[in-house]
């Protein structure tokens, strides 16, 4: 999206004062929620913080259009590198900040121990398959799951179907979990890079790979001129750049990396599927269609699903904040444009969502929970997810071009 388009969009629809008021009301409601949740106990503080950091995450995703699939597609089809660079910046900033936390909490990466609650999952062909299927699902539905959530706040007609489809995909994932676990996952290694090459080695290697990817992306790019103009800075210009225009790749990516570290330090690594999966698991369990036991699931790291026993959860509030924060940001920017879904959007949302749901359940997370939070944490699984989800997305784009006219 170019600057002129953004400004033109902002000028249509409701007048600015009404949008600003609505946006402020949404933000005020979220802040009031965090205030009400706050109580003098660790649990209440975590709930309150989760809603706040989720809100911030939603604002950042919406303002920088931080969408794994759309960013990849911009590069893949148009050789537009900014979105992909934002993802790479988020990976680099996050991996550096995570190491600050790791070295504080666990000065030595002791063999046999993992940093508490970090998303360091098993590496196996099942993970590769899950990531590939997730990538296909992104291409079919047009976004990854976190982007569907922030787009829900923009009034996307596809997002509700994609999230519903993801719930169905999760249930399918639960049904295939036990055979896959017994055949493969139970015997697959959990590779935490600092165990092999230390913290410094992991940091240097991760940053080097990210730098190489950035160089490759830039070498292949056919980007237009940078939208940064020579106009003098004024309150009006800055306000427009912050609240209406898409944030620069480096700013959005860095913000995501910082939020990832803050969330990990205070509550848990970033992830957007735990609550969705838990809702699916609770519903399916209530309907009696789940196996009595899901082998090993509770012992593996990642976006863990549980049968819900309490209404409020950290991840649930994080996701609620994400959608609400995006909604507030989109309102202010004039980018909240609810549309009635077409049949094609509904079908693509449901089908793509189901593929992503299966992939996220089987892979123990999505582009946020495994790719982002995994790479940040020095988990080999994060890199595997990156490679195979990208391959799946590329494959999905080719397939969709053949199957869907005008894709």
């Amino acid at each position: 999206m170019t600057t002129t388009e953004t400004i033109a969009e902002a000028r249509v629809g409701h007048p600015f004062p009404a949008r600003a008021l609505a946006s402020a009301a949404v933000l005020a409601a979220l802040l009031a929620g965090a205030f009400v949740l706050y109580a003098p106990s660790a649990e209440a503080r975590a709930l309150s913080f989760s809603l706040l950091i989720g809100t911030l995450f939603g604002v950042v995703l919406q303002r920088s259009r931080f969408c794994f699939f759309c960013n990849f597609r911009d590069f893949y089809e148009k050789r537009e590198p900014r979105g992909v660079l934002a993802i790479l910046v988020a990976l680099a900033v996050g991996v550096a900040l995570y190491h600050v936390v790791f070295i504080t909490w666990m000065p030595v990466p002791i063999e046999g121990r993992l940093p508490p609650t970090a998303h360091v999952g098993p590496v196996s062909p099942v993970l590769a398959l899950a990531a590939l299927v997730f990538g296909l699902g992104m291409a079919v539905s047009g976004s990854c799951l976190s982007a569907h959530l922030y787009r829900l706040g923009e009034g996307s007609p596809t997002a509700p179907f994609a999230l519903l489809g993801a719930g169905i995909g999760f249930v399918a994932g639960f049904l295939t979990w036990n055979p896959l676990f017994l055949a493969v996952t139970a015997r697959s290694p959990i590779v935490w890079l600092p165990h092999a090459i230390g913290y410094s080695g992991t940091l240097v290697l991760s940053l080097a790979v990210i730098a190489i990817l950035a160089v490759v992306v830039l070498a292949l790019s056919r980007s237009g001129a940078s939208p940064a103009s020579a106009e003098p800075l004024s309150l009006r210009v800055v306000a427009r750049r912050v609240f209406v225009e898409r944030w620069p790749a480096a700013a959005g990516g860095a913000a995501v990396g910082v939020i990832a570290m803050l969330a990990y330090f205070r509550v848990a690594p970033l992830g957007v599927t735990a609550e969705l999966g838990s809702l699916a698991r609770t519903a399916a369990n209530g309907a009696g269609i789940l196996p009595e036991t899901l082998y090993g699931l509770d012992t593996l790291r990642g976006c863990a699903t549980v049968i819900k026993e309490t209404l409020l959860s950290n991840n649930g509030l994080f996701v609620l904040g994400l959608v609400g924060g995006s909604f507030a940001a989109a309102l202010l920017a004039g980018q909240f444009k609810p549309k009635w879904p077409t049949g094609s959007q509904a079908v693509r949302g449901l089908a793509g969502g189901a593929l992503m749901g299966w992939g996220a359940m089987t892979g123990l997370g999505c582009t946020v929970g495994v790719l982002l939070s995994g790479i940040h944490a020095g988990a080999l699984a994060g890199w595997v997810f990156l490679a195979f989800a990208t391959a799946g997305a590329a494959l999905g784009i080719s397939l969709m071009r053949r199957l869907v006219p005008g894709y």
Partner: protein
Amino acid sequence: MLKAVIAAAFAVCSSGAALAQTGPLVSADWLLENLDDPNVRVFEVSVDRGVYERGHIPGAVDLNWHTELVDPINRDIASREDFEAKLRASGVTDETTIVLYGDNNNWFAAWGAWVFHVYGLGDQVTLLDGGRRLWEARGLPLDSAPPAFAASTITLQDRDLSLRARLGDVLEVAESRVDAHIVDIRSADEFNGVIFAPEGVRELSVRAGHVPNAINVPWGRAVNEDGTYKSADELRALYAEAGIDGSKPIIVYCRIGERSSHTWYALSQILGYEVRNYDGSWTEYGNSVGVPIVNVAGTVWTGR
């Protein structure tokens, strides 16, 4: 024998100083004031991972229940060598006042206190009353940096087996061959065999119910709303009401021995009764072959 008695008497006298200072429980305020005392060493025993790292009482050492307080291979408490190494690395000496606290109502911290007692450090150990929950509720300071201490050369004694009940000991009371009290500190539903395990915990026993002759006093009755122990008088009255007045030896048990440590602490350290913790608890007793149980509800595992 005489030597042992003299040594024991000496041990009680010499370290009586630490205990006299604190007693079996310390308040959050006391700990806050004594955090900088080099002779006070705080250990956090939290069972949920990530709790310690995200913020612990400043200077507290992480004591991992799953790996550092138990021997998972032998289903036993930590070996003397391993536990001694941990205490040496944490700079604990014969003069150190050891303060324990943790999550989950101090259950696992109380288990820790029991292990310290088994290894002869009972007179140096005290529990932060109210545990982590109260500390957090009061908004007292937390730190996320791991502490470092100069290593000590402390040597642990052999295990004091009189603090631990084994299956055979429990069976003797269950079959009325030995006169003692057994206190089952689980919930009434677990005690009566309505359920096998509390909510959110796997059913690890094939039988429901309780040990014959056991008396049910759920652990939670020993604490106030804020998680601190009730006063000694209240505790004495509570257990007396259940027929336990310290006149007979007592064995406490629960499901895996951690909640019972909490009651073990109240009965033995606050009231001074003679108490043994049965750490095998229901997951051992309920699964043992040829061992009688009482199952009031008559629940049968996987039975319809």
